[in-house]
């Protein structure tokens, strides 16, 4: 009897992580609001890079003759108490705001992920101690913790970033811990361990990719909160110091001239609203796209 050979087509199995990302992108594309938010964020990043080269005035250029002028063809957003062009200053301030948002959340995410994974993966006493520490941080409501950090370190832009970062750590730590606990219980983790994988390898190869989506969602929404908190601290005079064109600090100037020139406070505030809104819309959309409950 002759041997028959059947030639099965050999294909490389697709990488589940890449498949997952593709699925997410597909769902994200369907979500119009999220796409809008994403495009706005890209646009703002672009503005922060090339905008300062295109605007007619530098951030510090004073013209005391034209101080506190309302919006005009020459000064789209009017001028402030030193005759500086508010439109130019708002554009210059974009990079500061994005820098604060991204950098403070990056600090918080890194710290939160480390704490969350260690806590969830190893459990026991380490878990108890770390989570009680997070509880203590969470016991300071709202911007109180950030205020405390600024009290200790003194007012400056970088200290605000650190303060806002510290204030966001518990949110990440808790979410990552929860996801880690869930992943740890999965059978394949036992299988990998039986094959001799080290804790380090299990964490990096198997736990971390699985906690990735909640981190991304949390980070996007946290950037919105971080920008608002940092602007608040600068508004109180505890953050970015004048003459830096930081929007919160510009609002603080605006408050002093609210009786004669409302536009000084109006435009930096609108800028904050628009940027925060973009991150909130994008974060909402991401959450919908990544939420396993919504998966069809």
């Amino acid at each position, binding site marked *: 009897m002759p041997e028959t050979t059947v030639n099965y087509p050999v294909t490389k199995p697709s990488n589940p992580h890449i498949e997952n990302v593709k699925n997410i992108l597909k769902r994200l594309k369907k979500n119009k609001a999220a796409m809008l938010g994403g495009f706005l964020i890209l646009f703002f990043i672009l503005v922060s890079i090339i905008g300062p080269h295109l605007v007619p005035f530098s951030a510090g250029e004073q013209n005391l003759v034209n101080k506190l002028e309302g919006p005009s063809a020459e000064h789209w957003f009017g001028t402030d108490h030193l005759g500086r062009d508010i439109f130019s200053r708002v554009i210059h301030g974009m990079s500061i705001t994005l820098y604060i948002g991204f950098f403070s959340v990056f600090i918080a995410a890194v710290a939160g992920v480390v704490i969350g994974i260690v806590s969830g993966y190893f459990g026991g006493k380490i878990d108890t101690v770390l989570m*009680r520490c997070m509880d*203590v941080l969470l*016991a300071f409501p709202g911007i*109180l913790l950030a205020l405390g950090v*600024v009290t200790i370190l003194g007012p400056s832009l970088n200290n605000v970033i650190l303060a806002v970062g510290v204030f966001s750590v518990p949110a990440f730590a808790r979410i990552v811990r929860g996801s880690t606990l869930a992943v740890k219980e999965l059978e394949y983790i036992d299988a990998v361990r039986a094959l001799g994988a080290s804790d380090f390898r299990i964490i990096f190869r198997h736990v971390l990719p699985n906690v990735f989506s909640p981190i991304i969602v949390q980070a996007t929404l946290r950037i919105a909160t971080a920008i608002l908190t940092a602007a608040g601290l600068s*508004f109180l*005079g*505890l953050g970015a110091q004048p003459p830096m064109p930081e929007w919160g600090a510009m609002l603080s100037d605006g408050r002093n001239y609210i*009786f004669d020139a409302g536009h000084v406070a109006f435009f930096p505030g609108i800028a904050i609203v628009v940027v925060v809104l973009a991150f909130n819309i994008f974060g909402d959309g991401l959450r919908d796209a990544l939420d396993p409950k919504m998966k069809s």
Partner: protein
Amino acid sequence: MFVFTVRRILQTIPVLIGVTILVFLMMHLVPGDPAQVIAGEAASEQTIQQIRERLGLNDPLPMQYFNFIINALQGDLGTSIRSGQEVTSEVASRFWVTLELSFYSMILSVFIGLIAGIISAVRHYTWVDAVMMIIALFGLSMPNFWLGLMLMQYFAIDLEIFPVSGWGSPEQLVLPVIALGTAGAAIIARMTRSSMLEVIGQDYIRTARAKGVKERIVIYKHALKNAMIPVVTVIGLEFGTLLTGAVLTETVFSINGLGRFIVESIQARDFPAVQGSVLVVAVVFILVNLLVDISYRFLNKRIDLN
């Protein structure tokens, strides 16, 4: 239920201890000598020594902490460096203003948030829902101090309907309460909507409808009761946000509350004042959360039994 309550109260104790340690350490974490920082660059050695003596900075750290706790329990939070007054009396006189502002803002948030959330959920995926949720997104994305400034400019300066600043008369309440309560209203509206939508999709609601229960009763009696459970937690958390959001609102409207006091104390490097007021706010927040947790459990329990 009793066991849960006791356990939950006991769990609060380590957090309270942690918070007091952190607040206590605040002064000691400042780079350099706290006495030097308080006295300023140009201070003489004698002045610094006096400050050190007065704040007990010469004692060993655990001793200082112990004294801090014993004094705080007796209602003594030290003396403000700026005013020379007792921090406790400074805090007490301002605390009620902040509490009042937060309380009214909370009522506004809950009232508007619930109504908007329910309407959105009942009419979900209509234009009404879309408009409501867009407004809520804006409310969520607006800095409360900017909203305060804009309200002040329009209603107090241009239209002269409300006073520009201050606290006490009913007219003075309106603008700060709207400024502070808007973000909370947005959060509660979104939470109520999603919670309601989740509940409305459940089997028992379909059963109620199939039985011929009127839609109004299905929504307000059957659905709302269960949908409220997660909303209660959000309301509890919102209280903390309001308490500290007051820091900004009070600054905008020149209201002499605890929030403004904290900011002024930070600017003046008045550590005892900052420590005292931060401690009070944090402890109040912890207690409110404790109450919310217990009531949440209570709500849940009742529904389990039913």
